[in-house]
Structure formats: structure tokens, C-alpha cells
């Protein structure tokens, strides 16, 4: 369940300006003495695809704490060996390790070229940074490392945000093979308001439910408009298996050749480009729903399995890493675009005011991602405006969860703040609602029935008549009722239920909530080598408040 953020988690462990040394290795096939894992990535159709990826060099472990996913939570443990799985990014991975640093830090990355001889030189381009390089040999876009040699890149992380890094050498081939990743720069000055008002109450609620905090920071930028309560990252790339098999064949045909010798280089047709796999964070649906660092994906540690609660502001980092654009459609609500390529988009300031506070990025239901480009955005879900109570509340209920109060705040939500407190700076009137499962309910629809006939604990009088369930097919994430959460569904079933008998909850115990598909709307990319479902297809779960989200899973 944990998302794809946290491999090099060094940012706030180091003082500002600390020298950060990240050693990356462009990894290789079985012939290497230094990283002797075969570099194949797994796809849900059973294919194992020969790939190249970045990993951490031996000896870089002490510098980083990648096994600490967030907030002191341990990473996953291999049940057979008891050791942390891929805890040091010690093998190559696709995407490459996420470099997480803090604004103002100087970052040094040493790249060792462990690609096969025939691959020739390699390099890294860090888009959006002023990079200086030492060692290596000159290349067109960046200083390059020859086979077995190293090159060192240094840059100052002078601006917060999300940016890409990828191979700057023969990029059409090397990026396709998997040489890409992300640099996240955390803001140096998180506004105090990110821990006050609604963000404070969201934190209090999470603590009540004993939910760990997995955020890297409490704001994406040095701006109060970029506070967030949860975060996820999605890297999109396609994969053309013919290119990968051609590379493997030519590498195997020239195992002992020396770089620079005639005939000792790859001659790969990268056009016409004909991808058959469509990846988010290196995996396809349904593999991307499995846990982070799962031992079935030794080279694809990052999943894509977002979960949020009603009212939480989720930061999403959407990154293009392949050849093509992909229109990512977010079911459930719109996304406010904060920034492109790490550049926060703000509106002109009010007259006479020095600082700019208002956002200027678009609000969209489809976030197109473009290769090399990043987008930071905020998503939330509250159920506002459905015109029926999605919790199935009922004044008749004898269950406290079925009949809790709803106190509208200035925006109409049950957050405990007074309706007159338009900036959420006062003392909450009803902090006790922080312990209720209808925290952040949209109060205008409280107790409002959906169904014309009474069902279970749910009242009659609503506009809709639900049909005979025999003419319907239930989905795997369907709870068995129209209502949010296991409590509501259990109350909303009964002898008169159209869907389920008494006390039945259909969806899986660890996936309780409203499910929304987030997917490429170039719909043919919802396939894995001609098979639907697959590809760029994930499920956002809006979990009811009583369900504890554990992102480390």
C-alpha cells in the first residue's frame, strides 16, 4: 500500500547544506561481478523483460536510510531470510531510486557504468538543475561514464518540487531500457499553517485511529497553498519488448567485446516504436497493487496503490518517463495543478500585498503527463453535492455510527470548527467529532435518504429505486451497498436488501471504501501485451475513516 517515494530518504535527516553523496550504478546482466542479479522485470502476463536500471553502489548504505520508509516505519522484511528487502537499493530497479533531498542541499551523485560492454557509455541528466560533473568522458548532453568507469555529478537542490532524472546518452534506447527516476526536493520552509486548522485536525484524527504519517514533508513548496495530508507518486512509461529482446540478443552475442572495438556496440531499431506494456512505477495492473518492495518484484520496488480518507488533501506527483504522453484520468474528483517541473504556479498578488498566496494552475479531471515532465497536484474527495448521505445515516439507527451528529464548518463539512470560523484559526467548537467515523462528512446531505424504499437501517423517502440484483453483476471492490465503509454497508443490508443478506460486506477486508479507477484514458494502454485488464490502471480507495491506511504495505 505504501507508495513510491521513499528510497533515499535523507532530506530531513541531514542539516541544510549537508553534502549528500548518492552513488548510483547503472546495473547489468548476470556477467557482472559487482551486482550479480539478473536484471529482469516482471509483468503480469508472466513475461520477464531484460532491462537496465539504476541501483545503489556497494558502500553507499551508511549514507542513507532507505530502509526507513517514513516516520521510522521499517521497510518490508523478507519472510524467508528475515532481512530487509532491497533496503539499500542494492540492486538495479525500475524506476531508479527516488532521490529525496531538501531545498538548499548540495547533492553529489556518483554513477558507475555497470552496463554490458556493448552498451557503451552512459550518463544522467538531472532536468531543472545546474549540474557540474567531474571524471568520466565528455558526452553530448552530459559527462559520461565509460564501461566500468565512474562520473560524478554535483548540483544544488535550490528549489523545491518534483523533477526527473534519466540517461542522457543514447536516450531513446537507454531510457526505454529503464534508466530513469525522480528527484524530490522538499521545501526548506514549511508554512506553520500546514500544521494548523484543518491540517491539524486531520492529523489529530489520524492519531486517534493510530494511523502512521507517511508524508515526506507537510508542504510540497514554501507556500500555504501546498500543504497536504498524504502523498503519492506515479511514473508513467511504456515498454516495447522487441527492443529489450534485441538488446539482450546482441549483448549475449558479444559477451567479451571491448568498448570502442569495431562491431562492439548495440545496433537496435528503436523505431517504429511499438510498445506492448504500459507501466506505472515499473509495474502493470494488477501487479502495481501489490506491496512496495514485494519479493516477487525484486527490481520493481514501487507500487501504485493510493488510499485516502474523505477530506484529506493528497499530493500527487505525476511523472512522464517514457516516449509518449498519457492522459491520466482521476475518477472521483478534479485535481488542482500546483506545479509543472517543480515550478509552482501562483496568481498575481493582491494590490499592496508583497506575497503571492493564490494558485494559478488549472483544475483538471485528466492530468496529461509528458515524457520528462512532472506535475504536482492536490486531490481530495468528500462526497459534497451527491444529494444523499453516502454514510447511510438514519435518525432511526440504534448504532452510534449510524446516527452521529454533523456540525457544518465554514465550508459545510463536519470538521468540528464553527461555521463562523472562515480561516479555521479559532478553537474548534466540536473537537469530539474528530473521533467519529463521519469526520469531514458533507453536512448538507446528512441523513438524506437515497433509496425510495427502506433497506436495513437506511431510511426510505429518497429518489432512487434500486433494481433486482439478479440483473446486475457485482464488482470486486463493490461493498454490497451504495454506502461508504463497512459499517454503513452492514447497516444498509438486511432482509429487504436488494444486494446482500444481513451483515454481509462484499469487498475485501483490506480494501474498504469507495474505489475509483485512476487510469490512462488512452484506453488501449489498459492492456498488458494485448490483454485487458492490465497496463496503466490503478485503483484509488477512498477509505471510510474507521479504516486504518497503512502505506507501508
Amino acid at each position, binding site marked *: 500500500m505504501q507508495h513510491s517515494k521513499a528510497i533515499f530518504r535523507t532530506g530531513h535527516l541531514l542539516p541544510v547544506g549537508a553534502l549528500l553523496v548518492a552513488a548510483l550504478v547503472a546495473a547489468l546482466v548476470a556477467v557482472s561481478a559487482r551486482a550479480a542479479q539478473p536484471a529482469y522485470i516482471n509483468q503480469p502476463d508472466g513475461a520477464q523483460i531484460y532491462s537496465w536500471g539504476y541501483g545503489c553502489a556497494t558502500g553507499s548504505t551508511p549514507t542513507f536510510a532507505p530502509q526507513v520508509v517514513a516516520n521510522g516505519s521499517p521497510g518490508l522484511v523478507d519472510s524467508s531470510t528475515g532481512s530487509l528487502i532491497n533496503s539499500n537499493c542494492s540492486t538495479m530497479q525500475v524506476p531508479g531510486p527516488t532521490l529525496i533531498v531538501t531545498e538548499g542541499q548540495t547533492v553529489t551523485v556518483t554513477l558507475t557504468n555497470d552496463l554490458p560492454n556493448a552498451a557503451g557509455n552512459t550518463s544522467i541528466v538531472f532536468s531543472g538543475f545546474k549540474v557540474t560533473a567531474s571524471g568520466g568522458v565528455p558526452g553530448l548532453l552530459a559527462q559520461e561514464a565509460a564501461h566500468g568507469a565512474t562520473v560524478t555529478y554535483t548540483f544544488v537542490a535550490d528549489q523545491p518540487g518534483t523533477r526527473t532524472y534519466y540517461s542522457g546518452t543514447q536516450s531513446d534506447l537507454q531510457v526505454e531500457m529503464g534508466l530513469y527516476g525522480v528527484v524530490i526536493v522538499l521545501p526548506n520552509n514549511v*508554512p506553520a499553517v500546514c500544521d494548523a*486548522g*484543518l491540517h491539524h485536525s486531520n492529523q489529530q484524527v489520524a492519531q486517534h485511529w493510530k494511523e502512521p504519517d507517511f508524508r515526506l514533508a507537510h508542504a510540497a513548496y514554501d507556500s*500555504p*497553498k501546498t500543504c497536504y495530508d498524504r502523498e503519492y507518486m506515479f511514473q508513467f512509461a511504456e515498454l516495447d519488448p522487441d527492443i529489450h529482446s534485441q538488446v539482450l540478443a546482441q549483448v549475449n552475442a558479444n559477451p567479451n567485446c571491448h568498448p570502442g572495438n569495431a562491431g562492439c556496440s548495440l545496433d537496435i531499431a528503436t523505431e517504429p516504436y511499438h510498445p506492448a506494456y504500459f507501466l506505472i512505477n515499473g509495474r502493470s495492473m494488477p501487479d502495481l497493487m501489490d506491496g512496495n518492495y514485494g519479493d516477487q518484484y525484486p527490481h520493481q520496488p514501487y507500487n501504485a496503490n493510493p488510499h485516502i480518507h474523505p477530506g484529506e488533501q493528497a499530493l500527487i506527483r505525476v511523472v512522464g518517463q517514457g516516449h509518449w*504522453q498519457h*492522459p491520466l484520468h482521476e475518477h*472521483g*474528483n*478534479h485535481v*488542482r495543478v500546483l506545479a509543472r517541473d517543480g515550478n509552482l504556479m501562483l*496568481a498575481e*498578488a*493582491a494590490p*499592496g*500585498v508583497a506575497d503571492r498566496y*493564490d*494558485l494559478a494552475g*488549472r*483544475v*483538471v*479531471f485528466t492530468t*496529461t503527463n509528458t515524457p520528462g515532465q512532472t506535475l504536482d497536484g492536490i486531490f481530495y*474527495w468528500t462526497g459534497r*453535492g*451527491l444529494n444523499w448521505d453516502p454514510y447511510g445515516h*438514519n*435518525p*432511526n439507527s440504534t448504532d452510534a455510527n449510524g446516527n452521529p451528529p454533523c456540525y457544518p464548518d465554514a*465550508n459545510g463539512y463536519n470538521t468540528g470548527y464553527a461555521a463562523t470560523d*472562515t*480561516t479555521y484559526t479559532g478553537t474548534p467548537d466540536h473537537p469530539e467529532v474528530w473521533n467519529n467515523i463521519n469526520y469531514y462528512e458533507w453536512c*448538507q446531505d446528512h441523513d438524506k435518504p437515497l433509496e425510495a424504499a*427502506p433497506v436495513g437501517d437506511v*431510511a426510505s*423517502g429518497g*429518489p432512487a*429505486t434500486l*433494481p*433486482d*440484483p*439478479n*440483473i*446486475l*453483476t457485482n*464488482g*470486486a*471492490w*463493490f461493498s*454490497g451497498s451504495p454506502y461508504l465503509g463497512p459499517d454503513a454497508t452492514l447497516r444498509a443490508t438486511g432482509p429487504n436488501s436488494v444486494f446482500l443478506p444481513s451483515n454481509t460486506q462484499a469487498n475485501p477486508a483490506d480494501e474498504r471504501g*469507495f*474505489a*475509483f479507477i485512476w487510469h490512462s*484514458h*488512452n*484506453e*488501449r494502454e489498459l492492456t498488458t501485451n*494485448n490483454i*485487458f*485488464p492490465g497496463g496503466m490502471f490503478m485503483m484509488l480507495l477512498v477509505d471510510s475513516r474507521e479504516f486504518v491506511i497503512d502505506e507501508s504495505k
Partner: protein
Amino acid sequence: MSITRLFQCGLAALLLSVATLPAVAQSFRVQCPFSTITHPLVSPLTGTPYTDANGNTINNDYEPPYVGPTTFATVPVTKDANGKMVGGYVVPSGNINGAIKCQQIAGGDGFATMADGTQVYLFSFGPLSDLAKMVAGQDGTDFPNVFNQVYTGPPLQPGDPATTDEAAGTSPIGPNPAFTYNGAVGLVPDNSGTVVDPATGQTVNCALPGSATNPLCLTGHVDPRQIEDVGVMDGNMPAPLFALDEDDEYFLTLSNTGMIMRPDLFEQHTVHFHGYPNASSFYDGVPEASIAINIGGSFTYYYIAPDAGTYMWHCHITPPEHLQMGMVGQVYVRPRQNRVPLGTDLYTSLGWQEADPRTACKTNAAATDDATAASRDILCTNPLPAGVGGNSGDDGVTQVMDAHTSPERPYRYAYNDGDGSTKYDVAYPINIHGFDPNFHFIAMTFNAEPFVDMKDKYFLLNGRGYPDTVKPGPMKTQSPDGRTHYSQLLPTIINIPAGGRALLRISDLDVYEYQTLASLGIPMTVVGWSAKLLRDEAGHNRSYKTNSITIGGGESLDLILDASDSGKYPPGSTYFLYTPNLDHLSNDEENFGGLMTEVHICPTTINPTTRTCT
């Protein structure tokens, strides 16, 4: 189709362990209540009928004027007929806004005719209400008094309305079309019993003559034969157009009539309202997250019209297949600002919306401190317009009649802008799509469909390639059932009144690649994107002028072609919208056609309903 089919049909059972219920009941139904707790005929608080700002009794069959935010009062908790405590929720106590809207569609298959004459097989939706209006180029969304009309003419024919029109030799856009029925196909009184009139306490026998006009007897019961007769092979490309007004309650019934060309398939269908904000997963139409409708069944989706803008809808079953095959349509929502009385200051009317939290933006001026900035709804895009140089953003624009229209009507707006910046005279829905003829051919057989090798070769505006895009009226296709069906209802002839402004609502549900549409001549002013006004949080206008737009599948935008300078764009002139992706200017092997249409400047005014010059 073996592998693909097995996988998608077996997905639930094999991969995800789903509770699949046997399909034993055949159960077509429709739903279109005359009143609800949100749109009551009589106030539940006072027992008296509601009246609108003009003193008319509200009956949910028209849009009352918008003169202020709906106010609410809580219904007392009482016992219902089943002895359960009900109430405790809010209902309108004043300013009832919006109305009830209903629509019925069929999910199944059909054929469409491409501009090179090729007939292409579709998985498709077709209209099952508002048939006469739809084939005349209008939307298919209507009030209860239209939807709930029981058909009384000679039996509906397979292929209708085309069959009836053909027999009479009339055209749906002619002066006296033979087919005029707009009610819900199949709707009949439930003559199986009696109902009690809650107003009088008297028993009504719905089997007696005259019950077809008694609302109490119209319970949604249907005659399935009519639905199958009209709904089979009535596929439309694009799918039927939905049009809502903000504050409407919308009842959309999908009846799955089956796919006659593919008796081996038991395809379910759904409706995904694409872009619906704060959606419930139940009505989101995603089969994995909700329910899917089997053949022979109906399901009624229930929505409150979301914020104004251009959205899309489509089936969400096996989307790479069902979307490529044609199950794609547009839905748009018109703003409250259209409904303000003449003379109303638009800025003032936008301010009214702040008093109802459902319609409020709570962002009335640029923020000047952290706490104010952080407390705002981050997804709101229509704050009051910002003033220039410290002035108020109220530019004094009021609602007036639009002299470019005939019959004349008040101005229309794309969004609640508060300053008239999105006003228009006439609006055009434009759905961009692409067809891969090879995929459609294979989909008619039992073979596995190629997703990796998909390649669109027909490039379509509202289901047609040029020059069909400029053919007036609906296009017909004869299908293997021997009947002619109206298959592509919407031309894309952009008529603009002299000195006027046209709104283009552009949505793209192409499953394969991005599309670009350019304007040769009149610049495009993009005013909305993703059903959101292009305005920043501080109230500054972020619309922009361009001569081309590029959008991908699942994106939509609103743009205005502004021909208000009649010197520059004189009456009688013709311009073009076309794609500069030059390989998309084709109808398969015909290398001229495809994604292109014409823009005409009318001699004078325009009829905004028929979109023809007057």
C-alpha cells in the same frame, strides 16, 4: 477473441473473487419521478405549493429563474409508513433551483457509415427517449412531463424513428416529420394493480382506460417489447447527448438490449459520468468498483447536475474495447447564470451562490495571509472576478436579450463567470474520436482483438469524417436486421450569427492518441478546461487565444469562436476547423477528409435550437 474474452469475463471470478449473481430476471424499468424531496411539488414544511420568482407554481417541468441560493430547513423526524424514524435532513425552504430531468438509453450494438461509405460495426448506445428531438440534432435530456408521456400511436417499429420517417417520406429536420414521440420508449401504466392517491386517499385502478395520463399509474413499468424493438441495433455514434442545468436532479436509465451481432457475448454495460466531481463509486459506472448491468436489465443512475462545464460519458466495461467500438458521448451542464432574470447584475448573481455551501467558492478576493489561503477550497475555479488596479471586479454587466438569436432569447454563458466573459449565442457539442476499422471488423468475429496493433484510420467529429461533418440532419445506416437506423445524429456545421459568438464544447474520447484541432481564420478563445472556468484563485481571467487546441482521451475544453467583428468576419464567409495532424485528414484510404469541418457566418441571426441561420 479467446484470450481477451476469457480474461475479461473471468476477471471477477478468477482474479478478484467476486460475488457474481446469476442473471435470471428480465427487468427493464425506467425512473422519472414527478417530484422528490429535493424538488417537491408541495413544501414538506408548510404543505403549500412552491412558487418561483415570477409567481408560477413550481412543477419541475421547467427551469425556474435563479434569483438567489436555495435556502434549507430541516425536516422534523417522524415515523414513516414502515414505522421507521425518517427526516432530520434538509429540504428546500425557498428558492427551489433546477428541475428534474430524465433520459433513457439502450446499450447494445449497431452500425455507422464512414465518409468513404464503409459501414463500421459498433458496440454502442442509442436513444430510448426524446427520439424525435435527438434525431433533429438536440440533446435527449428532458423534464418529467415529456419523459413520462405514454406512446399512443401505431406500434413502434424496429429502426424507429427512421422506419416511420422513411415510410412517410419525411425528414426529422423537415417541416413536419412523421415521427414526433419524445417520451420514454416502453413506458406504460402499471396495470397489474391499484394505487392509492396520497392526496385524496382514493384508490385508482391503473388497468382502467385513462391511466396512461395518470401520474400515479406511471411507476416506471415498461413494455419490454417496445424497448427491444427500438433499442436493438439502434447504436449511435457518438452516444446520445446529455444536457443538464446546474441544480437539476438527473435520472438516467440504461437498458441493456444485448448485442445481436455477437450472440456469443453476454456483455454488460455501464455509464461512467466522466469528470463528475466528488462522485460516489456506486454511480460511477466502473464495473470493478460498483455494479454492471446485464442484458435484459435496466439501471437508473442518479446525479445532481455538477458544476457547469463540458464533461463526457462512456461505458466502463473493458474500456479499450468498448470505447474504441463507439460507446462514447458528451454531457454538458449549463450554468445558473443562464437563468438569472433580465436586468440582473451578473456579478451580484455570482455572489448569491456564496450563500449555499454546495455552490459556494468562498474565494472572493486575493488572499493576503497564510490562514486565508490555506482554508480555501483548492478545487474551486470560479471566484468573483478580480478588479483591475484595486477596483471592484463588478463591471456592471447585466443579463440582456441576445439580438443575434431568432427567436430571441437571453444570452447564454459557458460558466458562472460574473462578468459575461463566457457569453455566447449558440453552442456546439463536438466529440472527437477515432476508429480503427481493423479492430471493428475483428470485433464482429470471434477472434482476439489487437490492442498493441491498434491504429485509428477514421478521424471523427461527432462520429463523422469530412465531408459528412457538414451534411445537415442525421445520417442513416442500413443494418443486417434489414432496417435503416439513424446512426450518426449530429452534423458539425458551425453556424455563427453575424457579429456573434459560438461556444464549442469539445470532448475527446479517442483511445489511441492525442488530437489537434485548428481554426483557420477565427481565433479560438479557450475559456474552460476539464469543466472548469479558466480563472485563477485570485479571480484573474486565465482564458487565452489560440488557433489550435490539443487534447487527449478523457479531456474536454470549452472555447469561443468570436466573430463579433463583422468587418473581419463578414456574413456569408466560410472558415474551417481542421486537424494539422495531416495524416488525420483522411477517411481510411481516402486521403482527404477526416477531422475537419466548416464554420459559416450567417447573413443575420441564428436559431439557437436548430443551429441554423435565419
